[in-house]
């Protein structure tokens, strides 16, 4: 494994670890808020980003958990971006294009799901 490859792997590792840790912190914080505020019955509902962020800012535990889950879902997306940028920087245009294609598909999913 050469230096560039090692550096790429380190960046991917960091991205995944930070995403997982941030998600875990928000999931735990959300659970704590749910219990301290005695939040009542929850109806599953369609996801709306602005409304969810606004509810999380008001300290609603369920919304904080939802943001945590969203960060968990965005972690693999961030990994695709990191790898794509890294390949672009080292001149591996073919694989940078492959990463861009995957990112496009993920963006389509995000738009279809939450748009």
């Amino acid at each position, binding site marked *: 494994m050469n230096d560039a490859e090692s550096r790429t792997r380190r960046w991917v590792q960091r991205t*995944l670890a930070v995403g997982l840790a941030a998600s875990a912190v928000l999931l735990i914080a959300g659970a704590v808020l*749910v219990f301290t505020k005695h939040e009542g019955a929850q109806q599953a509902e369609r996801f709306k980003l602005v409304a969810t962020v606004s509810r999380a800012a008001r300290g609603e535990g369920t919304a904080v958990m939802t943001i945590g*889950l969203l960060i*968990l879902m*965005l972690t693999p997306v961030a990994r*695709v971006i990191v790898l794509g940028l890294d390949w672009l920087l080292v001149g591996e245009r073919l694989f940078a294009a492959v990463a861009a294609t*995957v990112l496009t598909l993920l963006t389509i999913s995000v738009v279809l799901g939450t748009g």
Partner: protein
Amino acid sequence: MELTPTLPLLAILAAIGVGTGTLGAILGTGGGVFLIPVLVLGFDVPMRFAIGTSILSVIATSTAVAITNVERGTANMRLGMTLEIGTSLGAIVGGLTAGVIHGDILEIIFGLVLVPTALVMWRKRAGDGEAGEPATNPPVAARLLPQAEPTASLSHLGVGRLGATYFDTGLGREISYRVQRLWAGLGISVMAGVLSGLLGIGGGVFKVPAINLLCGVPIKAAAATSNFMIGVTAAASAFLYLGRGDVQPAMTAAVVMGIVLGSFVGSYLNRYVGGLFVKRLFAVLLVGVAVQLLVRAWMGHGGGGGGHA
């Protein structure tokens, strides 16, 4: 689906996560194949919510395992990213399809997919690893078919743009390989993606043998690369489930945290309790669960687990 997040309920859900994550790691199937039946049959959770919970759990466990595999250098990131074009496309199709077909149909498809999964588990040997595991051991899915053997160092010949080299601690030497039949690998990736998006499973049971046998990637690298891809594949459909309101935040959060913990516990326990008898016992159990799901769906009792149709 309405849920009042009480401490005992979330504790039970987290315990289910720990249990299914532990089982998944010990038995080499990933947690989803156990989590979904437990939620649907044991707690009468509608199928689409069980799938929504499972797909988030798949992302969490895959991410945790990938951190290790990337460090070891066994995951082939270039090949993984290339095949992710297929799995992501398939996952979007699967995720959209799951939104329009009835829960009974999903239960039937899930029940049918459990059968080959149980077969893989039955054929597994003690000490075998799995698709979703750190690639310290060869996964077992490919034992159903002859494996592509690791090639002795090809570094003098070059590994091509998609090939790679890694150090195999078991063999004590570097293994280099070229990737063959990429189009076939992409085709299987699309199908694995559809199943993942439709049923909320990782799909490693199908992907690992394909990458190994069709693309000629050594089994350890195939397992690590498959796991590397699972997070992105699952994310491609997870946004659709979240957007439709098929993710119950409190239930999912509790299960996700439990299943990640369980997968670490299972990886540790695997050395002590991963014997052939245990694997075969659960393979039979899985077939029993498959039959129960199929009968339930056939009788129309999966109505509570209906899709949006």
